[in-house]
């Protein structure tokens, strides 16, 4: 009985303390940058490498003396893939932590959710999510004033794939996508851009992000005899798709994966089934394959080396988006200091920024700064990537 | 005809009840005269409680009709039957243990007032007035059954004897014309049993017809005007207590039931 009493009192005290506890974060003379990533939850495959990357990068910057002699202080919140939490986190970064700029969120949907907040508080937000809608206001036809993003748009990946298909003379295709934000936005881009490349979509199949088997969908596709399948997915399911594809003896139908496949981990998990799979990738995934005179060769090789050494896991594309975002912001801080409007202007006019995923050339009409060149088609060959032609 | 309706509050005609092939009530016919106390007795498994459940609408009979005040009620749901004027208690006490004694009786008044969700949420004056009226009449009933001083207690906390009384009180609150009591004396000691019998008599004296299932023969013989004996779902005897007491079929059924 007494144990129970003590436990109850402890619980009450715990909650009372919880109410008062607060993080003390007041390093005088540091640059504060906020970050919101989906570190846990349904999109942890995005947020986890992003968080690891930016932490590593911030450490490196601070070890090299910080920015203009000031420390770079990174405040990272985890939104768990939840719109409400994400919204609160961004507002908290702005109003309480008083950061100079925000990077993230990891998900397109959540980025769209916090655009109004960034615009209202006039704070630069560099999203790490792909959708073109993040930097394209459908009402005005222009980018949102304070919002940027570093990942390539889905449309770029789609165009890279379609171009490749067209060169091979293929136009009868099937789509299989996951019913998450990543899959749905890829799917809608595939459908939107199909007429431009004269693609005939004969099947449009879907599966859930936690499904165990996609044989049924692939069998249906098989019955429609397309010449290529484009799979838009992320996480373990895309590996299952690859395996099912091979098991069903469908290797005669080329399989194109989205850039979400961009990790050697996936090739390994596919256990041989990924041989011959095509996919569009940014430079940071194929650092070793880049020619020595490639402008991104040194930044990407550096990142690859440091990341794998520090975290002992293969690199995924997504960490690179975080790298680009933080690097961009810290370059801005270096030249203009913690002045939100000036940071915005700086990024908007930044040209020739060498990032993990391409050469960024921002402009008032383009808050992404990348072109289709940011994607290269690769093929899986002998458990590794190989450049296509 | 109209005199007959006046005479017989309840009339069962050819009631059959089967559960998955098992016949629990077999072609049952009987009448309950207004203002009397009628007891149903019979060995365990004779179908007494099922009969109550059929009359009060928990089950619809497989065949046959149940007439209440000359109207068929066998297809009505339990709550509709309550509105017709039949109220009941349960063999194993089914009080609302999460409520006070008073609230239990107040719930018994449910059929007497219309409760509207919106009106009660907005505390309209009419719903407040109704509530007050219900409260007063519930207190009156508590006084009648002798639990007035315990009105604030939780129904759970009462001893079994008082729980049984309270259940009767709750059944009375709807001012029924027919009250069905399922073993009101089961599990009670002698004083409590005595209290219960006199309460039943008092209820009957106020003009309420009573239908009773009871094992305690002393109670049954003491208070009933008429007795119906069931065995294996069939009527084996019906009549005034002294007739039934000497009926050889009844004695046989009871002894057979024991052996």
């Amino acid at each position, binding site marked *: 009985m007494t144990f129970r009493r003590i436990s109850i009192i402890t619980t009450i005290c715990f909650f009372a303390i919880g109410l008062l506890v607060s993080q003390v974060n007041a390093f005088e003379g540091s640059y504060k940058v906020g970050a919101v990533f989906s570190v846990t939850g349904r999109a942890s495959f995005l947020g986890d490498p992003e968080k690891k990357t930016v932490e590593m990068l911030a450490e490196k910057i601070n070890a090299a003396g910080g920015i203009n002699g000031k420390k770079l202080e990174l405040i990272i919140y985890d939104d768990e893939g939840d719109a409400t939490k994400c919204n609160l986190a961004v507002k908290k970064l702005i109003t309480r932590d008083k950061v100079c700029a925000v990077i993230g969120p990891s998900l397109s949907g959540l980025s769209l959710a916090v655009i109004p907040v960034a615009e209202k508080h006039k704070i630069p937000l560099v999203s790490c999510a792909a959708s073109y809608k993040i930097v394209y206001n459908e009402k005005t036809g222009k980018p949102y004033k304070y919002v940027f993003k570093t990942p390539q748009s889905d449309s770029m990946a789609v165009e890279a794939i379609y171009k490749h298909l067209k060169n091979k003379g293929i136009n009868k295709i099937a789509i299989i996508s996951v019913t998450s934000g990543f899959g749905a936005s890829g799917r809608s881009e595939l459908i939107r851009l199909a007429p431009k490349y004269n693609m005939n979509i004969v099947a449009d199949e879907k*599966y859930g992000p*936690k499904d165990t088997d996609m044989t*049924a969908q692939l*069998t249906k596709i098989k019955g429609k005899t397309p010449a290529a399948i484009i799979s838009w997915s992320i996480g*373990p399911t895309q*590996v*299952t798709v690859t395996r099912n594809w091979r098991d069903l*003896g469908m290797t005669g139908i080329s399989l194109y994966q989205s850039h979400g496949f961009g990790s050697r981990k996936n090739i390994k998990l596919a*256990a041989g089934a990924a041989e011959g799979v095509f996919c569009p990738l940014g430079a940071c995934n194929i650092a070793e394959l880049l020619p020595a005179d490639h402008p991104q060769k040194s930044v990407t090789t550096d990142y690859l080396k440091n990341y794998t050494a520090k975290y002992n896991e293969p690199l995924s594309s997504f960490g690179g988006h975080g790298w680009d975002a933080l690097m961009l912001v810290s370059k801005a801080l270096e030249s203009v200091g913690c002045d939100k409007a000036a940071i915005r202007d700086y990024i908007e006019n930044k040209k020739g920024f060498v990032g993990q995923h391409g050469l960024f050339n921002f402009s008032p009409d383009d808050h992404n700064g990348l072109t289709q060149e940011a994607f290269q088609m690769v093929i899986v060959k002998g458990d590794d990537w190989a450049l296509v032609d | 005809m109209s005199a007959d309706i006046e005479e017989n509050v309840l009339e069962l005609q050819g009631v059959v009840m089967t559960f998955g092939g098992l016949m629990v009530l077999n072609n049952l016919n009987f009448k309950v005269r207004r203002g009397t106390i009628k007891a149903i007795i019979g060995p365990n498994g004779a179908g007494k409680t099922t009969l109550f459940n059929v009359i009060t609408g928990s089950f619809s009979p497989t065949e046959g009709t149940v007439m209440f005040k000359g109207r068929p009620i066998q297809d009505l749901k339990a709550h509709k039957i309550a509105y017709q004027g039949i109220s009941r208690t349960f063999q194993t006490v089914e009080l609302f243990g999460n409520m006070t004694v008073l609230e239990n009786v107040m719930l018994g008044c449910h059929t007497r007032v219309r409760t509207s969700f919106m009106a009660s949420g907005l505390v309209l004056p009419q719903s407040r007035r109704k509530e007050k009226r219900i409260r007063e009449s519930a207190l009156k009933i508590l006084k009648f059954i002798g639990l007035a001083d315990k009105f604030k207690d939780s129904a759970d906390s009462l001893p079994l004897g008082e729980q049984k009384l309270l259940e009767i009180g709750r059944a009375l609150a709807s001012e029924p014309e027919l009250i069905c009591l399922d073993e009101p004396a089961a599990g009670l000691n002698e004083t409590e049993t005595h209290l219960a019998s006199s309460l039943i008599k008092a209820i009957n004296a106020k003009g309420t017809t009573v239908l009773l299932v009871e094992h305690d023969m002393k109670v049954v013989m003491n208070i009933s005007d008429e007795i119906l004996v069931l065995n294996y779902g069939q009527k084996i005897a019906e009549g005034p207590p002294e007739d039934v007491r000497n009926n050889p079929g009844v004695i046989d059924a009871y002894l057979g039931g024991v052996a």
Partner: protein
Amino acid sequence: MEKITLASQLLQYLITGLTVGSVYAMVAVGFNIIYNVTEIINFAQGEFVMLGGLTMVSLHVAMGLPIILAFPVTIVLVTVIGILIDRFAICPIRRPSVLTLIIATIAVSIIIKGTASFIWGKNPFDLPAFSGRNPINILGAVVQPQYFWVIGFLVITAIALSIFFDRTIIGKAMRACADNANAASLVGINVKKMILLSFALSAAIGAVAGIAITPISLMEYDRGAMLAVKGFGAVILGGLGSFPGAILGGLIIGSIESFGAGLVHSGYKDAFALIVLLVILFFKPSGLLGNIEISRIKRF
């Protein structure tokens, strides 16, 4: 590219459906074992599957134990976790209401999931298929050898359980608890021990399901919840408490998903399974093979 006939397509859907359904069925059987003894729906059931898969990966792939050894060790480890859950989460609850118990098992599943993400990280893991990955062609449908393993494990589990519950004294004692815990304790059965045993047993079955499915679908830390939902659906569809019902329910849900995805609309395949479930519940509230007596259960 050869054209696939409709008949082979249908066969393919059926095989896929039965395989996925077998996993749901194993989860459902696990639900029932605990439910029958305790009236608890253990929402951490899916976590056993996840733990089974990931532990096997660690033992077999990372530590290099041969399958024949890794398999029993995995089951024992997960079983121990099942026992711990009973000891530290279910046993201490003083006034168990159905809702409290549901919340407790949800809390347990949150803790397990969090711990698993800490141990294994958030990345998926693969397990080599038990007998290779060379698909077999049956009448134009393609079958992975692992499919037979999954279905085979379900069959073995079903047979082993029916022997356990019908032939062994402990099994009979557990059934007695299921029928009437008070009566069981009166005849000297230790009900607490039986509850413990039910958690152990259903953890073991969950682990088997996890080991069987990982070579097909990979495994990661947050896979459990969805499997628990599907398994719960299977239990209710078949009728709470009925083992044949659980297996039937699992196979039906798996098949509806597969045929729904193949023939109708793959985006709505989960919805089809649930709509069928709802329709069945509305017409037969105790599930397909459920007993109306068992469905008359506690209130919340």
